[in-house]
Structures are given as C-alpha cells and as structure tokens.
C-alpha cells in the first residue's frame, strides 16, 4: 500500500511538467453552474455533487427507466427469499490515489454509512461483510425490495480509506470516478480533472468545474454570456429568450419530480376528500404550465410521471372546472360572503401556504394558485420561507398547505420514497401526506417491500395510484421540467432524470 503510494507520487512527479502546461482554463474546462451548494466533503451529506461530477461512484447504477445497472459491482444476486444480497465487485478498479478497490473497503464504507444519514440508515440490515476479495454480502432481517436503489444513491458512494482521518471524517475526495479532484472550495467551487486510469469509458474533456450560482437570474446570465457551458435549473421565464441565442442549445428533460400541494388532511376545512377534490378542480393547470412553466405538456394531476407506468393511471385526468368546484363547496356548506370569500358558520375559508424560494418555479406557481383559488373564494396566504419549514410544520401539525417539488426518483424505485411519504408514521411523511385518514395505502406499501410477484406488485401500485388520485392527500399541479442550457461548443450531453450523474465522460469538444 505504502509502496504503491510512493510509486504513485513518483509517477505524479514525472508527469508534473505535463500537468503544469495543462492548467484548467476557459478552453479546456467545461464550466457547470447549478443552484446547489455542497456543505461538506462527506458523501452522506453532499455526495450528490460528487457523484454528478463523477468523482465518486456507487455500487449500482440506474437506467432512465429506473432499472438497476451494474456500477462498481458488476453482478448482484438476491438470495434467501430476499434476505441476502450478494454483490460481486468489478476487477481492477483504481482509486484516484492508485490504490485498488477491495471488498473489505466497500464493506467498511457501507457500514460507516449506517451511522450517518446515508440511504441505508433505517433499513432492515443485519450485517454488511466482505466475502473474499471481490464479494460483499448484505444480510437483511426482512426482504427489502428497494435496497438496490439505495445502493445507487449518492450517499452510498464509495471512498478510498485514505480519504478518512483518524476521527472518521472525510478529509479528501478520493473516489473511483472518471474525474479526480483538482481543486475544491466548500461550498461554492469544485474543479475536476480527467482520471486516466478509469475502469470504464474515459473522459475526453480535460477539466470540468462546478460552481454554485444561487440566483436563478445570475445563472441565466452566465449561460447567455457563454461564461458557463452547462447551466442547470433555468428559470422557465428566461427559456424563450435563451432559445433564440445561436450559441446555446436548450435541453428539456422530464424529471420524476412533481410540483404538488401538500395538504394537512386533518385540517377542518379540508378533511373532507370532496373539499380536496374541489380545490384540485379549481387549479388551472394548463394555464400555469403554459404561461409560467413555459411547457404546456407539463400540466398533470397525477403524482408520479407517466413513464413510471406501474404508478400511473393511464388516461385519467380531470379538466379545470371552477363551477363544479364551487358546486362541491356549496354542498359542503360553504357559501360566498359579500367580499367574495367562502364562509361557513361565520368562518372564512382561509389557509396558509408555505413554500421556499430556492426553486424559482415554486414562488410563481404559488402566486398563480393563490389567485385561482381566490376566484373560488378561498383565501390563500402565501409565505415564502425556508424549505425546512415544511417538515417542521409537518411534525408540529402547524402546516396547512405547502407547495413542494418532490423528486420520486431520489432512489430509483419510487417505492422507497412513497414509503417515506405515506407510511413513515401514523401522520404520513415529511414530504408526503399529513393526517390522511387512509390506512390501506400505508399498509399496502409496507407489504409491497417484500412482494416478489411482479404482476401483483403492478396491480397494487395501480390501486395506490388510484387512491392518491381520488383522495388527494397531495394535489399535483405540474410535473417538473428541467431546462438545461448547453453551449454548442460541447457535444454528447445527456441528462439523467435521476440527477445522479452529469455524464461528463461522454462529453466532447466540437
């Protein structure tokens, strides 16, 4: 080990002259801008940036449909009725410090994650052990279907031993990806360099840099001026303007992320499912999608996207219908008062909505919903605050309505997320239902974890989708459309709907 390090160092020194001539500059670097800061080097906290920039890799990968693909593990098998996962590691995988990937190392790394906020935390795991040089075994106390997706999550990415200090803190990012760290300045800036000993498809570009751009309008300007080559999270409002520029290509990608209103179903105004349905009917989704999101087909009243077909009700949708909604409310005893607000027993229909400003669409969509509900007679007070107010309001029941953008592909199989959102406690889930009286859905979700029959799994999923659609614990507004600007000097850009990787190693200069 030590010898290898010395050889690597010597080799590095020999290569030094070449490295000096190739400093990162505007010509040889792909500049990436996105909204997200990384607050730490620890992958369990900020791993999303490091896997996207392809410094770190996970054991398994995910295809665009959510199916599992080999990653650092070339094969995997599920034995013992789903209670034992056996992963076989790829041969000859080098870390950036030239050391080799071993099974023991992977087991250690996964075990570390169990005590931190990795995707493995809280799963029914008994033990994670190395079996020989290239096998890792994970023993479960109960079958857990989404474990594979968890192993594809950024928080389970594999770091070299040398990345940790004695206290178990991450001090350097030494991974296995096609890029190694050239410069890192927490929380804004990460510059990576091509790693020539990569086991898979080697990169063509020399350098890539990641820079946090907090303000949406600043990111748009960066794209416009050509200062950034790839800009994620464009403000929909500026997309038409950017599209007219000859230097840019705007890529529209659908994400398994949905803009939805999280409702407190325990609130006396909206405890009736008719009330929630009426509120849903009063939202002009087409208008919002066209005028605000600038993507007419983004309008949806289903929580999960159509390509997650197990969870999508085909052909089911209900059009904007204000009169029907008003009729439903008058059935429930709500009538308009002289000021035009709905009133029942002398009480005005007034709700507080919280949302957060980090995603530019949320504020504007909230503003639009506010006005559309006003036409129905519902007074909605919009409060733009920090995203943490949502789980916090969930836990103390103070939340009434929240506008969220939920990613159902954080772990590639949506089951894991749905479990969290609808079945993590009696109340529901931080980013899912709140005080929803339905008990059948959480029970079924829990049962599906160990369901091995695909047809039955599908059938249950459809039933759950129908329940979500009819009872509206959340009111979906639109699916989230990711707009990305790419400078035309690059080719080979591909977008990962699960936002796990930027596929930088597939990019090339034109």
């Amino acid at each position, binding site marked *: 080990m030590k010898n290898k390090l010395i050889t690597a160092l010597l080799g590095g020194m020999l290569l030094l002259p070449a490295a000096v001539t190739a400093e990162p500059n505007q010509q040889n670097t792909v500049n990436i801008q996105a909204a997200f800061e990384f607050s730490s080097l620890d992958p369990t906290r900020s791993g*999303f940036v490091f896997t996207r920039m392809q410094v770190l890799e996970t054991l398994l990968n995910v295809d665009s449909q959510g199916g599992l693909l080999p990653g650092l593990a070339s094969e995997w098998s599920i034995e013992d009725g789903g209670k034992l996962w056996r992963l076989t590691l790829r041969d000859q995988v080098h870390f950036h410090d030239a050391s080799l990937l071993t099974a023991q190392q992977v087991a250690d790394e996964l075990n570390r994650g169990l005590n931190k906020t990795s995707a493995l935390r809280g799963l029914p795991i008994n033990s994670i052990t190395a079996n020989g040089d290239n096998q890792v075994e994970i023993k479960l106390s109960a079958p857990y279907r989404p474990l594979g997706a968890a192993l594809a999550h950024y928080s389970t990415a594999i770091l070299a031993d040398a990345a940790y200090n004695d206290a178990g803190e991450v001090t350097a990012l030494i991974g296995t990806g096609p890029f190694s760290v050239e410069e890192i300045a927490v929380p804004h800036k990460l510059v990576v360099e091509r790693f020539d000993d990569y086991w898979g498809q080697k990169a063509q570009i020399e350098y890539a840099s990641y820079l946090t751009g*907090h303000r949406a309008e*600043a990111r748009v300007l960066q794209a416009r001026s*050509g200062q950034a080559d790839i800009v994620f999270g464009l403000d929909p409002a500026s997309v038409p303007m950017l599209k007219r520029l000859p230097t840019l290509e705007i890529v529209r990608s659908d994400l398994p992320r949905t803009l939805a209103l999280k409702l407190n179903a325990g609130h006396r105004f909206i405890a009736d499912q008719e009330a929630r349905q009426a509120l849903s009917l009063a939202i002009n989704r087409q208008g919002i999608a066209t005028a605000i999101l600038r993507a007419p087909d983004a309008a949806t009243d289903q929580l999960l996207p159509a390509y997650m077909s197990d969870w999508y009700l085909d052909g089911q949708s209900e059009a904007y219908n204000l009169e029907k909604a008003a009729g439903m409310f008058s059935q429930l005893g709500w009538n308009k008062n002289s000021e035009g607000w709905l009133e029942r027993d002398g009480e005005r229909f007034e709700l507080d909505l919280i949302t957060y400003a980090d995603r530019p669409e949320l504020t504007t969509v909230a503003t639009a919903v506010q006005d559309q509900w006003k036409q129905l007679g519902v007074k909605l007070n919009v409060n733009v605050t*920090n995203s943490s107010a949502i*789980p916090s309001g969930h836990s103390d029941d103070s939340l009434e309505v929240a506008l969220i953008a939920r990613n159902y592909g954080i772990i590639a199989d949506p089951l894991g997320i749905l479990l969290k959102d609808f079945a993590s406690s009696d109340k529901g*889930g931080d980013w899912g239902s709140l005080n929803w009286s339905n008990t059948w859905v959480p029970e079924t979700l829990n049962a599906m974890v160990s369901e091995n029959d695909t047809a039955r799994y599908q059938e249950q999923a459809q039933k759950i989708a129908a329940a979500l659609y009819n009872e509206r614990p959340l009111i979906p507004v639109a699916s989230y459309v990711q707009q990305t600007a790419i400078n035309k000097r690059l080719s080979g850009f591909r977008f990962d709907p699960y936002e796990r990787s930027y596929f930088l190693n597939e990019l090339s200069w034109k």
Partner: protein
Amino acid sequence: MRLRDLLLKRLLQLLAVSWGVGTLTFILMRALPGDMAYRIAAGRYGMDAVDSDAAALVREELGLDQGAWSTYWSWLGDLLQWNLGNSLVSGQPVSESLWHMLGHSLLLAGAGILLAALIAIPLGLASAHHGGWLNRILLTLSTGMRALPVFVIGLLAVVVFALELNLLPVAGFGTPAHLVLPALTLGLSLAAIANRVVHTEAERVFNAPFYEFAQTKGLSAWQAFLRHGVRNMSVPVVAFFGVQLITVVEGVVMIESLFSWPGIGHGLAHAIFARDIPLIQGAALMMGILFVLLNTLVDLACYWLDPRGGQLA
C-alpha cells in the same frame, strides 16, 4: 496624549461592540421562527432532502436541546479565547470561513473604494475648478445615480458590459476579470456621492482666504494647490469616507449577492437563511470589529492630516 486617549476610547468601543453585537445577534437568532434543527438540516443535506430524521440527527449532534443561557455562556467563554466555534452547516471552524470571506470582501471593498477615488477626485476637482456646465452635468449625473439602488446599478452594468458587449464575466470569482463589474458597481455608487463631497471641499478651499493668500504672497496656482489645497481638502474627504464605510459594507452585501462573490456579506445573508448561528455571530462580529477598526484608521488618517484634532469624528 490625545492620540492615546483616542485609541483607548476606540479599544473600549471595540470590546463593547464585540459583546453587544454578539449578544444582539444571539437574541435575534433565538427569536427567529421555525425549528432551528430543521433549518440547519436543510442547510446541510440540501433543501429537498431535509426531513424529521435529519433534523433529529442534527439536534442530537449539536446539542440544540441545551438552554439558551448555557449556549450563550459557552459562546461568550469561547469568544474570550477567540474561538468562534464551528459552522453548524459545514462543520468547519467559523474563523476559517470568515478569513476566507473577509479576503474576498476586502478585495472587493478596496477595489471599489479605489475606483471611486479614481473617478470622484478628478471629477470633483474639475467641477469645482471649472464650474458652469461641467458642474451641472456632474450634479445631474450624481443625483440620478444616487436615486438608483446599488443592485440596479449592478444589473445595468451586467446588461451593458456582460450581455450586450460581452466584455466581462457576468458573475463568479477567481480571475481579475471577475472583479471588474462588482468593483465598478460599488465604485460608481460611491463616486456618485464622493465626487460631490470632493467638489464641495475643493470649492471651500479654493474660496478660502488662506488659499487666496497663498497665491497673493507669490505661489503659483499649482504650488498653492499642492502645498495648501490638497491636504486641507483631504481632511473632510477622508472623514467622509469614514462615514461612508457603512454604505460600503451595505453595498458589498447587495453586490456580493448579485455577483455571487463569496464574501462576508454573501456569507452572512446565506447563513441567516440556513440558521447557521455561529457563522452569523462570527460574521456580524467581524463586521462590527472591522467597522470599528476602519473608523480608527480614518481617525488616525484625520489625526495625521489635521493635527488640530478638530475634525475627529
């Protein structure tokens, strides 16, 4: 003797400010709504990834259940050893991040002030000397410029120099070119006021009896300006810059936010949203200390320029 009194007074002020600012921010931050653990978790794990689990983990790790008093006392004790604690979000020592930010902020502020001086002094002198149309044009321009908030000046500068002319980067940091627009924005907004101050002071000196006497006793116009004009003008101008320091700092907060400049203002605004209390306290403290120190520097400059001590702020 006078100088020592002055420095002693400033030192006392420094101590009072350190304690006061720290305590004030502490109280204010305790008064902020929402559960602190959730906010910190949002800062740590990303805005969409925060949930009750993460918040519980944060609460346990940081001991947020402690009472306000014990947190306050331990903070005060640490402060005495110049230990500002660790950032709740990144876990890094606050003083380290502060130094990093401070460097960027000072660079921006220094460049802005330098630019303001380069613009304001020649213009102010020229308008005082020439008067007439030049003065009126500058007066109009300055008044117009002062009516624009600093972020609007920044936006306009971006539109013109970065978007339309494509000369300079829009935002970011790292190369000298990145510094130009933020510094220009700060410089312009400062110069809009400063050139009038220079103008007024120059006019005062040009019309002063001693300035006339310097010439009637035989000095040439240039000699009179260099030997009797410059120093007398600079006293109030330097004092004015002292008063304007607060504007500089406020401008820096807005400009850093607009241009993604990783300075102390940007850091502070960000820390407020993330509820990173040690960082907020550290940044506020640093600003307070910086403000007192810079004021002391201005005092010293005035003292050196004007030994009468009449102009000390």
